[in-house]
Every structure is written in structure tokens, then in C-alpha cells.
């Protein structure tokens, strides 16, 4: 899946970004954390401070700023600029990419946990304390979508849930597992989209 998304998109990606991705993959093969961070900081446009970066990561991006945060193993990034602050966590085996030019993603004290698949539009902002829990969370786009996705503060999103991009979600919202969100949410509370029906066997 990860290799296929490079092969199908190779005409849109410039040679400089491809080269940066290859060098960052080689740098994350190294054994210790300080070695990985030192060699990643040598790449122009990459700034990593006081943070941990795991093994086997691809960074196909122009500029990266990572402060005080953790990144796990086997991640794949194809976003032009990434901004992580304030104890934000990206787990392992995530696949985050966007096919739009000049795409931008920012995390602030928030968490993306395991095996999630993000296909982002141009601008995505995660506010404070946004948690994608569990595994297999997805954010999907249309090609026509030009609005920015904006998640507020204190949001928990359960596992297996799917979000359409270009959406605004307000503060203090809990979204149950396995739910599908197509419209923006204004009032705070608990939301879920699947309801079980019962049928007795005689």
C-alpha cells in the first residue's frame, strides 16, 4: 500500500522531496535515538528538538518541525509541511498523505495511535488534546474539497471510525467507535452512528 502510493503518484512528487524521503529512511535505520535525530537534522528544512523518532520512517516532506513529541515505527508521511508541538504522539504504522500541493498538518498536544490512514486536504489543524484512539481510524477526501479540516479541543474519536475532510468539529466531543462523520458538528456531547437491531431466533 505504501509503496503503491509512491508509484502511482511519482509524477506529482518533485525529485527533491523523493530524495529527502530516501535519506530520512536511511537515517531512521540507525540504532540509537540521538544518532537518528542528529542525521535527520542534517537534512535542510528538518528541525527536531527534544523528541523521539523510531525506526523505518519515511518523511516525504519539505519542512518538518517536531518539538517535545514522540513518533513510533513504520510511519509514512507524504505531507509538504508538518508541525508537532507539546507532547503530541504519533504511534506506529500510520499512513498520512495528501495529493494536494502545499499541504499542511499541525498537531498540538494530540495523539494519533495505531494503523490509521489519513488522506488529507490542503490544511488540517488538530487542536489541543485530540485523541484518535484504538486502530484503523480514517480521514478521507474528495478531489474537489478545498476547505480546511479543523478539530477543536478535547475530542476523542473511537477506533474504526471514518471522517470526511473539510469538516469543523467543536470542543468537548466524544465520538463512539465505528461511526461515520460526513457533516460538521457544533454542539458538544457524545455521538455514534451505528445502532444494533435485535431479531430473536425461535
Amino acid at each position, binding site marked *: 500500500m505504501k509503496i503503491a502510493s509512491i508509484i502511482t503518484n511519482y509524477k506529482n512528487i518533485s525529485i527533491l522531496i523523493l530524495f529527502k524521503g530516501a535519506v530520512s529512511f536511511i537515517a531512521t535505520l540507525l540504532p540509537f535515538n540521538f544518532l537518528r535525530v542528529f542525521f535527520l537534522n542534517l537534512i535542510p528544512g528538518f528541525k527536531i528538538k527534544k523528541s523521539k523518532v523510531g525506526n523505518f520512517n519515511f518523511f516525504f516532506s519539505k519542512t518538518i518541525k517536531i518539538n517535545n513529541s514522540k513518533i513510533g515505527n513504520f510511519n509514512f508521511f507524504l505531507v509538504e509541511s508538518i508541525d508537532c508541538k507539546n507532547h503530541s504522539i504519533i504511534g506506529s504504522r500510520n499512513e498520512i498523505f495528501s495529493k494536494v500541493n502545499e499541504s499542511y498538518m499541525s498537531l498540538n498536544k494530540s495523539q494519533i495511535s495505531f494503523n490509521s490512514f489519513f488522506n488529507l486536504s490542503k490544511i488540517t489543524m488538530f487542536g489541543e488534546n485530540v485523541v484518535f484512539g*484504538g486502530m484503523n481510524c480514517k480521514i478521507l477526501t474528495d478531489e474537489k474539497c478545498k476547505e480546511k479540516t479543523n478539530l477543536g479541543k478535547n475530542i476523542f474519536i473511537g*477506533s*474504526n471510525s471514518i471522517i470526511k475532510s473539510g469538516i469543523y468539529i467543536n470542543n468537548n466531543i466524544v465520538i463512539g*467507535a*465505528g461511526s461515520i462523520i460526513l457533516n460538521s458538528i457544533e454542539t458538544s456531547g457524545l455521538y455514534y452512528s*451505528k445502532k*444494533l437491531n435485535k*431479531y*430473536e*431466533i425461535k
Partner: protein
Amino acid sequence: MRIIKFFIILCISILPFNYIRIFFYNLFICYKIDKESYIGWLSLIICENFKISNCKIDKFNFIFVNNFDGKNSSINKMNKFFGINTININQSKIGDKNKFVGEPKISSETKFYLGLKSKICDNNYFDLTRDIEIYENCYLGSDLQIWTHGFNEKREIKTKNVFLKKGCVIKDACLISMGVTIGENAIAEIGSVITRDLDENSFYYHELQKH
């Protein structure tokens, strides 16, 4: 001491034939493995007490458990068992690529029980911060998730056990959240999200809605 034990187990698991591997496991690390059982190539088993009879454990399994007890059952390739206290398997089958993950920081006495003649298919995820008990004649499909921990509205961790009782069938891509007990002979359709208890002898499904 742990590093030496790990190194010995890695050396044993590379050895070519089955009876040689079983002989060295019993000799050096004091496991109790029957002569009729089979342990595949490069499956790392690091336990304190390991006891199987007439079992088949295939290639590339990783088992890091305190106590493992198995009878007449089979485990396929590429499964991972992490951080669990006791595992008890009796005359049942486990497929490929399953993950059984516990967290010893929260509770160090977790237990996983699989009853008689029950079957687990491929690519499932079992979260074992608390116990999961699966009784006789159950069938679990593939791509399942079973969670035993969750979060409060104030983001405090809550943990509860999960029980699946006799003869229940859970089909593919279901999700079971914490504290759920599923009654006898209950059936959950494909892709259902189960957040409350299911009654006996009943069939559960999600309905398509037309606008």
C-alpha cells in the same frame, strides 16, 4: 540473565529438525513439551512455565508470556502474544496474524481462556489489559477487535472483563468494547459494533437506511 536466556532460545529456534528443537528446549530451559507436539522454525517462546501436549505451534510465532498451558490445539503462523500472565488453550484453533497484547503496568494478572472446540480466524486484535474468557463451541471471524479498556468523560482509564459464552458466533470486522458479556448462541452480523450485553438465542445486525 534475561539476555542469556533470549540468546539461547534464539539459537535453539534456528536449529533444523523438530525433535532436535524440542529436545534442547526441554534440556536447557526446562519446558515441558510432549513428543507428539510440533514447534515451528524461528518461533520464539520466552515463558517461565511452558507446558503443552499434542499441540502444533507453527513458524514465526512470538510468545512472551509467564504461564502457557495447551492441550490438543493448534496455532498457525505469525501470531504475537505479549505481556499476558496466563494463557489456557484446550482443543481449539487459532489462525494467522493475531495479536494478543496485554499491559503489565496496569494489571499483571491477566488471563486468556479459550474453551473446547472454539475457533479464532485471522488478523484479529485482542486487548488484554483485563481478562477475556471464551467458552465452548465459539466461532470468531477475522478482522475483529476486542477491547478491555476504555476512557471516561474526564479521560480516566476504566477496565472491565469480557465474556463470550457457549456457542456464540461473531462474524468478520466486528468490534466489542469493554465490559460486554455475550449470551449463549447469540449471533452478531458482519461489521456490528457491540457496546452493550447481548441476550441469549438472538441475532443482531445493522440496518441500512434510505433517505
